[in-house]
Each structure stands twice: as C-alpha cells, then as structure tokens.
C-alpha cells in the first residue's frame, strides 16, 4: 500500500475514534440528520413513484378522447361521429365508450361504472374493484341492487372481483354489460359517453386531433399527454405543499446543524492545537474534520434514504399517505413499484451532505490556522 493510502487509512481510523469520543453529540446529530433525510427522501420517492405509476397506467389508455360539448358541458356523443373520425387519415381505430358514476347510498361511496368491450360482461352480472369489495363486503355470487334513472330496481350478481394489483385504477370500478348500463341511466342505443381513438403514428397525434376538431366542431379533444401533465401538476402541487410545510423543520435543522457543526468547543480547539504542535499540517487537520463531517452526513444520508425507501415501498408511506395520495371512501390499496431516480438522489445528497460538510470545515479552518505554539501557553 502506498504512503498516501496509509495516510488516508490512518486519518479515517482517527476520524472514527474521534467521533466515538464524542458519542453523544455524534449520535444526536446523526439522529436529527437521518430524520430530515428520511422525511425529504420519503416525499421525493413517493411523489416520483406515484407519478411514474400514473404514467404507466395511462400508457394503456387511448391516445385521443373525443367528447361532445353542449353549452360548455360534456354531453353524450352520437355513434355517427365515429364514421367522421374513422375517415380521418392516420386513425387506426375508434370506438364508443360508456362510463359514468353511480352513488351507492349503502356504502356512501361513488362507483365508476364502465362497459368493457373485451371481455364482455353478461347482462345481470357485475365485476367489481377491490374498493367496492371492501365497501360492500361483497363476494362473488352476492347480489347488489341499485335504483335506475326511472326508479326501477336493477339487480346485479357479482361475477368476480378485480385483483388488488391494479387497485390504483380499479378500486372503485363497477364493470357491467352495455344493456345494463343503458338501462340504469336511460341512455338510448347509438349514444356513448365519449369516443376512444388510437392512431397509427404517435407523432401525428396532434395533427389528427386538429383534423378531428375541424371535422367535429362541437367536440372536445383530450390527448393522453394532457392527462399525464395534469396528473403531474397535481402531484407536483401536493409535493410542493408538503415540502413547504416541512420547510420549517428543514430550517430548524439547518440552524441546529450549523450550531452543532460550526460551534467548536474549547476541547476541540485544544485538540487542534495539539495536533498542529505534534506535526500535523493545517491541511491534515482540515481533512480530518472534513472526514468527520462526511462520515456523519454520509451515514445519515444513507440510513435516512434507506429508511425512506422501506417506508415508501414496503410500508406504504404511512406517514404522508393522506397528504400525498388524497382521500376517498373507496381508497385504493396498492403497493408502489420501487423506483429511484439518480438525479433526485444527487439533488438530495447535494442539499444535505454538502452544506453540513462546509458548516463543519469553516470554523475548523479558522481554528487550524492559529499558530501551534498556543498549546504551549
């Protein structure tokens, strides 16, 4: 091993023994530091993962949606609009969708009713999401009754339930047959809630949307990218709000760490004097103290980040769930897919480890340039 490596090893060994000498101060500092990294990393990991989740879910949704507007409100769209759309070059397929919301007084919750095209549901039967299962304690084979638009009772037999894996989007789903949907809401055949369109070339989406808009002036065109942006804004806003709330504690930590890291005790000053007197260069002393700062901040960062990872991806982010996810009666129970963004880690690292190390070094530098003969007096 080269002398340089021996020197670094010796300095690191001495750093660790220095830290263990001030065990109380070091552990206290690390505990506060770790909690701050934990909180910030939890918020960041959660927001990022949920944004990705939304993007993954939306990846399967149609690229373009067409809704009819009447007097500025969303209205049912006639099936003949499909012919006009299919005539636009670049449109791969277009189909009418039936969906809506149904309030269930028994569970005091809103269900999202949909008519799936593949596989089709038999009339009189229903497939329900995990949230509905929990709200109504319903099992396959149970009967569920609702009042239709005209007051008549419509009964459904639970055919099966949707697995919890897709709970983020399926928790409140209530999948029924087309006939049952139309009967429940009194929607005449030939009318749809909206139209879902897929295009051949994704780069032509905007152009095709413009053409549809020109051909059907009373419609509203919604692009998948726009929905994604809306989701991102919502989560950005929530993350920002939480970070603002946390700003107070971050500031308190900044003051605390500055005070702890920058305040040199008389004992520490004496030690610096001794080290210089026995032949340590100013640079060696600064390197030692920088290592001390780095050991504390790096350990706190790694532990804090690891705890945050476990908190978000293994324990469902229990601490921030209500703020970051929002609230609903039929709340989806789901586990986020673990994802770590390098830039995010680097940002957090820069804003936590770097300031602390600097806060440690500045006073040491001031103390370390003092003449070594002070220790003799």
């Amino acid at each position, binding site marked *: *091993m*080269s*002398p*340089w*490596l*021996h*020197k670094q*090893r*010796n*300095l690191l*060994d*001495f750093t660790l*023994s*220095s830290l*263990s*000498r*001030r065990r109380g101060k070091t552990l206290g500092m690390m505990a506060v530091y770790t909690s701050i990294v934990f909180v910030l990393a939890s918020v960041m990991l959660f927001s990022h993962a949920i944004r990705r989740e939304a993007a993954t879910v939306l990846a399967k949704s149609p690229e373009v949606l067409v809704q009819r507007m009447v007097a500025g409100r969303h209205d049912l769209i006639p099936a003949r609009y499909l012919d006009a759309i299919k005539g636009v070059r670049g449109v791969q397929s277009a189909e009418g969708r039936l969906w809506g919301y149904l309030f269930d007084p028994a569970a005091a919750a809103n269900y999202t009713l949909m008519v799936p095209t593949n596989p089709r549901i038999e009339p009189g039967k229903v497939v329900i999401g995990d949230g509905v299962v929990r709200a109504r304690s319903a099992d396959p084979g149970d009967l569920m009754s609702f009042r239709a638009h005209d007051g008549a009772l419509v009964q459904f037999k639970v055919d099966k339930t949707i697995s919890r894996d897709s709970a983020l989007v399926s928790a409140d789903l209530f999948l029924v047959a087309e006939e049952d949907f139309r009967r429940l809401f009194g929607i005449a055949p030939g009318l749809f809630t909206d139209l879902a369109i897929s295009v051949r070339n994704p780069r032509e989406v905007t152009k095709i949307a413009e053409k549809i808009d020109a051909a059907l002036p009373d419609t509203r065109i919604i692009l998948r990218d726009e929905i994604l942006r809306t989701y991102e804004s919502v989560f950005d806003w929530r993350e920002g709000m939480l970070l603002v709330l946390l700003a107070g504690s971050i500031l308190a930590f900044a003051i605390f760490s500055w005070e702890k890291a920058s305040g040199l005790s008389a*004992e520490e000053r*004496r*030690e610096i*004097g*001794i*080290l*210089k*007197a*026995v*032949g*340590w*260069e*100013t640079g*060696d002393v600064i390197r030692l103290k920088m290592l001390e700062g780095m050991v504390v901040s790096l350990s706190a960062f790694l532990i804090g980040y690891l705890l945050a990872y476990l908190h978000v991806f293994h324990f469902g982010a229990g601490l921030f769930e209500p703020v970051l996810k929002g609230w609903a009666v039929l709340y989806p129970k789901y586990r986020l897919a673990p994802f770590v963004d390098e830039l995010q880690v680097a940002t957090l690292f820069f804003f936590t480890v770097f300031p602390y190390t600097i806060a440690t070094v500045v006073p040491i530098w001031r103390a370390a340039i003092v*003449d*070594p*003969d002070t*220790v*003799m*007096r």
Partner: protein
Amino acid sequence: MIHLSDVRKAFNQGKPNEFWALKGIDLSVRAGKVTVFRGPSGSGKTTLLTLVGCLARPTTGRVRLRDRDISGLPERFLTDIRRSTFGFVFQQFNLLKGISAVENVMVPAYPLGRCRTELSARAHALMDSLDIGPKAHSNAEWLSGGEAQRVAIARALINDPEVVIADEPTANLDSERSKQFLGIVETLKASGKTVLMTSHDPLVCDTEVVDHVVSLRDGQLVDTR
C-alpha cells in the same frame, strides 16, 4: 546544531498591549547534549523553546537549524521540519482524551503515511521501553501524572526525532517521578538525542545529565554554563 542570533519575539505587536517576550537572544545548542533553559515565570524560556522547536517564528533575528535559516520559512515547511526533527513533551502533557494511550503515541505519525501495523508495533515497543506497556490500551484520562508524561515522551519519540523538547517536565511530578524522568533523559542522551528543557526546578538544573544551563530573565540571557 541550532543557532539563534539576535532573536526577538513580540506578542500583540503594534497594539497597546504589545509585549516583548525575548529581547535579543544569541545562543547555540549543541547536538547530542542536554540543555536546560532556566528562569522565573515570564522570563521567556517557553517562548524561546517554541522558536527553537519551530512552533513559532521570531519577530526579528535568525534561527538556524544546522546551516539552514528557518526563521522565515512558511508554516508548511516549518511543520515538516517540526515533525521530522523535534518531539515535544508539553507541561500539561496534552494527551488527547477519549482515546487510548497507544493511539495518543501514534498520532504524530498519522500524516506521514506509515503502515499502521508497523506504527503500532513501534508505539508498543516505545511504551514497553518506558515501562508503560501495560497501560497501552487505557484511555489517556485514566493515567496518573507519571504515566501520562511517559506516554507523552513515547509520543515525542514516535517519529524518531533528533531533538526532544520538554517544557517544565517536572512541574507536575513529585521528586521520585522527577528522578525517573531524568533517568529517561539520560537514556535519550545516550541514544544520541539532543534534549532541550525549560525548568526552574533545581533537581533538573543541578543534575549530572544536564550539559548546559541557560539562565534567562526578562527576555534576556543572564548566564550560560
């Protein structure tokens, strides 16, 4: 080996509380000998020791180590000379609390990048030679005055310096311990080390092992023998 010519040292120069600790010292310290700086409190003996040991620079005058003028060298070079040429035993011993005695002994060698195993072996050997081997793993603050001083001596010797500097080495010791210390000085002298001490203890100044006694008063040399 060390030559001082017209060395003066001022503290707080240019301020109302300016104080001249040394007022024109001419002195030569010979290699392989034991020299004691004697004088009452405030006579400037510790200040003289700091100049000789490269812990501080003179305000005016020259300090030469062999033929090299070291009085105007920047801090970095002084540090280099200090750790390769001098070993220090401070009056309060100045051991680092919370770490073991053997670690205290090794501290001056850390920046030199020596192998830790060899370093540890040398530290233990030094401590054994000073009869404090069994205390190697005791924390510095648990040691008695005599033990702490011997740890400080081992620390001073870890980089095998040519000169050992001791500031008031017997000030915190009883007569028995003082005699033991002088025994160690004799061993150091026998091994070819130059020893420089400050003291106003007659036990130190009048002992046979001491070759030269330099008396100071009010920052000036009053007598040398």
